[in-house]
């Protein structure tokens, strides 16, 4: 995706690599498979009602204009002079450290979340056969 290119541009190579692997390897394949599996539903899908399109356009335009004005009038601090480096070794060390700014607790929580998501997918996929 183009978002990964933006990450490369901002010198966060590790995040860019993670983004490429997760999206190009996982999510795009999942979405393409689901489009294949549910293909014949898209043929006869009616267009959304006009009122909903108009309301969505109004909401999106108002939100975009507000955010643009906010960005235009906000004065950000000048960029700090420290060179930014996101080395994968530094990321790994801080990710698994148990000291003050360590991230080992969210790491474990996310691993439990991924396990729960996998189990949930299997349960949802199996439910049809049992009945």
């Amino acid at each position, binding site marked *: 995706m183009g978002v990964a290119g933006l990450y490369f*541009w901002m010198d966060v190579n590790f*995040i860019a690599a993670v983004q490429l692997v997760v999206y190009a390897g996982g999510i795009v394949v999942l979405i393409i498979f689901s489009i294949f*599996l549910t293909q014949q539903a898209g043929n006869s899908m009616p267009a959304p009602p006009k009122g909903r399109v108009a309301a969505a356009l109004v909401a999106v335009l108002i939100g975009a204009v507000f955010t643009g004005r906010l960005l235009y009038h906000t004065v950000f601090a000048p960029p700090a002079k420290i060179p930014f480096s996101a080395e994968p070794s530094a990321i790994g060390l801080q990710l698994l450290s148990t000291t003050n*700014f360590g991230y080992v607790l969210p790491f474990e929580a996310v691993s439990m979340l991924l396990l729960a998501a996998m189990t949930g997918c299997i349960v949802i996929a199996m439910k049809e056969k049992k009945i």
Partner: protein
Amino acid sequence: MPPVSLIHILLVSTGLFFIGMYGLFTRRNLVTVLMAVELMLNSVNINFIAFNRYLFPGRLDGVFFTLFNIAIAAAEAAVAIAIIINLYRTHRSIDVEGAQEMKY
């Protein structure tokens, strides 16, 4: 340092977020709604990385938030696609309007 500034990246992520919001409001295909949600999550990730890189370059907190956010987005996509395929098996349709049994 690259010549791009913080405001440009924030404008790009604002555009991504509102494109995703428009798709979320108007589309009727559940897979397209899922892709719109992914767009919005990506714009939030870009914001985290941009603020971390331009305003607090000595720390790495935004990078960690982005990592966890990507993991949560992947889990969400997997569960959502499992639900969509199951809905298609029982209803023969992936229209947003068709799934109303659990509404009340």
